[in-house]
């Protein structure tokens, strides 16, 4: 990778971050909404910790993993919508006429998403600490949590980019929001899988990769160093990231060929 390539990635990542920062709704809403839901759910569901077998006596600690996934969901939507807008406005076509390498475009876009993910992760962790959550895995666990959330942000951001490159329409990307929402809802988001009573729901949550991402993050907050949960969490996150980046790269090549 040449110095020129990294300069191109840096420029486009900067553009992506600045573009997001200039739209307050894109910054504030992904930060405020998950915090609001966290506040509501953690207090409303506190009595769930009285259930035999519940892994912690603080529902806030249990639920703190969820904003990380909601942040990833917003990353998907923002990355996809921004890239789709570049396609719709012809920016991508103009870019194709320059010496810029296609992969730098994708790298820049995802760099911007990861910068936003880093800000979000820092906010969730800070909120948890302020609200008195004890991170069972300690400082090292917080660092690992940060890395895992970046990896998840990369995977979901690439998924958004893939959708944008494939469809070329911001509306189509937005239309996928309910689909991602289903993955979030039908997971172990609100209850440990072994405590989910409805059988089909438990099976769906077990098959749902999002459950393992949430459980990987949650293990660092609630349990400590749980090798199985972390291996599954990182494994699923890496798999999603590699698959999504590959799909996005192929779609980008096709999109640039078309133009």
């Amino acid at each position, binding site marked *: 990778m040449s110095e020129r390539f990294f300069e191109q990635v840096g420029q486009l990542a900067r553009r992506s971050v600045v573009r997001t920062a200039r739209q307050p709704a894109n910054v504030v809403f992904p930060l405020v909404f998950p915090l609001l839901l966290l506040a509501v759910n953690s207090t*409303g569901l506190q*009595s769930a910790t009285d259930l035999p077998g519940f892994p912690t006596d603080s529902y806030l600690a249990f639920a703190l993993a969820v904003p990380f996934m909601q942040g990833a969901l917003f990353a998907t939507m923002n990355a996809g919508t921004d890239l789709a807008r570049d396609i719709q406005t012809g920016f991508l076509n103009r870019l194709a006429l320059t010496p810029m390498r296609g992969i730098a475009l994708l790298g820049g876009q995802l760099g911007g998403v990861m910068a936003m993910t880093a800000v979000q992760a820092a906010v969730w962790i800070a909120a948890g600490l302020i609200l008195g959550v004890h991170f069972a895995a300690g400082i090292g666990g917080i660092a690992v949590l940060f890395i895992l959330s970046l990896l998840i942000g990369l995977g979901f951001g690439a998924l958004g980019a893939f959708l944008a490159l494939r469809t070329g329409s911001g509306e189509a990307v937005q239309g996928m929001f309910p689909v991602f929402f289903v993955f979030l809802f039908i997971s172990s988001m609100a209850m440990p899988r072994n405590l989910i009573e409805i059988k089909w729901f438990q099976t769906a949550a077990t098959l749902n990769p999002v459950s393992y991402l949430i459980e990987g993050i949650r293990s660092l907050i609630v349990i400590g160093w749980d090798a199985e949960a972390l291996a599954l969490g990182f494994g699923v996150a890496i798999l999603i990231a590699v698959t999504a980046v590959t799909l996005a790269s192929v779609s980008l090549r096709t999109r640039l060929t078309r133009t």
Partner: protein
Amino acid sequence: MRTLSVAEGVAWRVLHNVFTNPSLLIPSLIFPLFFFTAFAGGLSRLDQVPGFDYPPGYTAFQFVFVLLQSAAFGGVFTGFGIARDFESGFGRRLLLAAPHRSGIVLGYAAAALVRWLVTAAVVTVVALPVGMNVGGRGIDLVGLYTLAVFLNIAAILWATGVALRLRTMQAGPVMQMPVFLLLFFAPVYVPLALLQGWIHNVATYNPITRVLEAGRGFLAGSPTETGLAFAVTAALVVAFSVWALRGLRSAERAG
């Protein structure tokens, strides 16, 4: 008479737009089902929390919340359409064309109600075969759905007032957020008595709590706080009618 014909025209147009546009129709049908599935399916073990006492079971407990939530958000979603109409300039042409402008508000409210009735039918049809127990008799169920109708009307009038004042799609969060907060600061997951900390205090004084508890009482066949719940929803309808009509005057002044 002229008011009614304006209302009929506006309502028909909104309903035509909604029912011929999947991107408008599907979210309002799908989201309540998401919530119902996630809450009733994922959290059903909560009925084993010590002190949880709702004889029809957790599915019915959550059904009432989802039904009332769909009623409130059905109103808000229609409010988005009003904002879109005014942002695109259609609303101004509507103001010019309508001989009795209060018919515009009435038309939007009627459309929101019809739109929600479809959602309510879908949610009910899904809830019954997945094991929702109904303890109430016919009259109790009429009480439950009437409460939801009142809530739907109050929500659309609230959203109309906001949309007519701000006249931009960016007003969406202003319409949505207060409704969301009122709904979720009520006893959503467990009965009021099991809520702990600040949420218990907030839920105790939240008027929607009375509506939710009465709705759950109707479904269980043991009505409770019904007078208060109907008084709350009627008061919301009256207050937001004034709010919406004043919003209309604001839109008229803006030209």
